[in-house]
């Protein structure tokens, strides 16, 4: 790793499960053996407005409390993207759910990857609910910072025994989507 600490932010609107997503991703990162800090900022905006979870990981001890300049930003809604886009570190990666986002970042110093995550969840998995798990896989398809096995384990631990097969499928589908987008856009 080139730097001390990688920061990730997961944002969207309340109900999309982005905070839970940050916990799942942080769990997967922990399984990789990194030092991990997961956190969230609460606020009135958590209901309906922009909701956000965060994860930091490093080989070294982390004293930092909150993500300030994410290296990786997952945005699941336009409002959330607009709110956080300026905080992304130059050279950072921005992942957009193009189902909810149509105005993409104008910044040229970040790499933007987009896919209609929610639409894929609805059409291929039957429920918008799986967009969250799909997004986790999508992130990993792009940045590949955890093993798929750990990511699925982390997801299943956090959701219990609910819709295990569909969730597993969602992560795989998201991952493949990520790989495809990466190939197309690079």
């Amino acid at each position: 790793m080139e730097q001390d600490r990688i920061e990730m932010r997961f944002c969207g609107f309340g109900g999309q499960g982005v905070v839970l997503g940050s916990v799942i991703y942080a769990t997967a990162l922990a399984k990789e053996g990194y030092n991990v800090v997961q956190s969230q900022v609460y606020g009135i905006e958590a209901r309906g407005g922009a909701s956000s979870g965060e994860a930091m990981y490093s080989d070294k001890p982390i004293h930092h409390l909150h993500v300030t300049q994410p290296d990786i930003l997952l945005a699941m809604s336009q409002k959330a993207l607009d709110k956080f886009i300026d905080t992304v570190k130059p050279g950072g990666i921005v992942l957009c759910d193009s189902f909810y986002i149509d105005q993409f970042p104008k910044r040229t110093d970040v790499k933007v990857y987009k896919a209609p995550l929610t639409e894929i969840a609805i059409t291929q998995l039957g429920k918008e609910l799986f967009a969250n798990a799909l997004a986790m896989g999508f992130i990993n398809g792009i940045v590949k910072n955890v093993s798929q096995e750990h990511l699925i384990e982390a997801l299943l631990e956090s959701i219990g025994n609910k819709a295990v097969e569909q969730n597993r499928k969602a992560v795989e589908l998201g991952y493949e989507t990520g790989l495809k987008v990466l190939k197309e856009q690079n």
Partner: protein
Amino acid sequence: MANTRKLIQGNKACTMGAIKAGARFCASYPITPASEIGEYLSEDLPKVGGKFIQMEDEIASMGAVIGASVMGVKAITATSGAGFDLKQENIAYAAMTEIPVVIVDVQRSGPSTGGATVCAQGDLMQVKYGRSGDCPMIVLYPNSVKEIYKTTIRAFNLAEKYMSPVILLMDETIGHMRENIDLSEYENVEIINRKLPDVPPEEYKPYEPDAEGIVHLMPFGNKEGYRYVIQGMHHGADGMPNLSPATLQCSLDRINGKLDRHKEDIWEWEAVDLDDADIVVVAVGCVSRSATEAVHAMRKQGIKAGLFRPITLWPFPDEPLMKATEHAKAVIVPEMNMGQLVHKVKEYTRDCTQVIPLNVYDGTVIMPEQIEKVIKEVSEK
């Protein structure tokens, strides 16, 4: 090597530490950001034969945990600032009657309802001075998820050892944060249980301290025939109300003196790069993490900065602080309030040492850069 670390939330770590320490009873009342502590214990205590009850209010939950402890069952309650206000009368009762209990205060922004999910360090003085009378208190203040686990166990140990309520002070940010930690090193951690009387019932005086200044209270419901009164009025060795000048002084000396006498055992602090530091940051809780980063960053730039972090907030580690700041030209006190810790720091640093407060109380956590800026300004002078 197998990865034995798990991602655990701060509030969860507190409940795991409590169960490890032997807590088998929790009474609480919902309040953000402490609610998860009651939630987790309602799920986990029954698994080990313990009980959780959500009482009708904060006052009742404080009363119920003392009631359980009187029966010899280790007990914990958790709240936040506004709820802590309500708990104060019964916390004072526990201090006066020398009943061990652990009270968690996961701070939020106040006064009053303030901000439920907003991080602040506004209760530093309240936890020590919020009660009537000269009421002693042990307050511990961890700054990471792992340290919450360890410090919760220590809180119970100190409570049982010194027959005193112990407050575990936490920050919203740390309570809600998740970190992946390895707790296997605490598998065989020492667990301390209160001492029982060593005299037969007919000779027993519940409030007669031993050579260490500690009382040995026999749990109620005992089969050995120890019968006595526990009550919050001033009392002599027999526990009965007594307002004679000698008894009053004696009871206040006993409850306060036992902590003073054993302060070196109660004190815990962390020193970061202090040996040759000429600029010392004094910080507690979440702010100390930013301070650690700031100190490391300054060292890389050749500035001799260090951090003194009280983990035991009360009784205040005055002598260690004096030693840590002996050769400092400046002491910086960043805290998320309008200035509380800084007063104690001023009291225990040399008059010639400049003490600089850094107060942030807008709900955002103090970041390393903010502390670095003050350190740089001081070092350039």
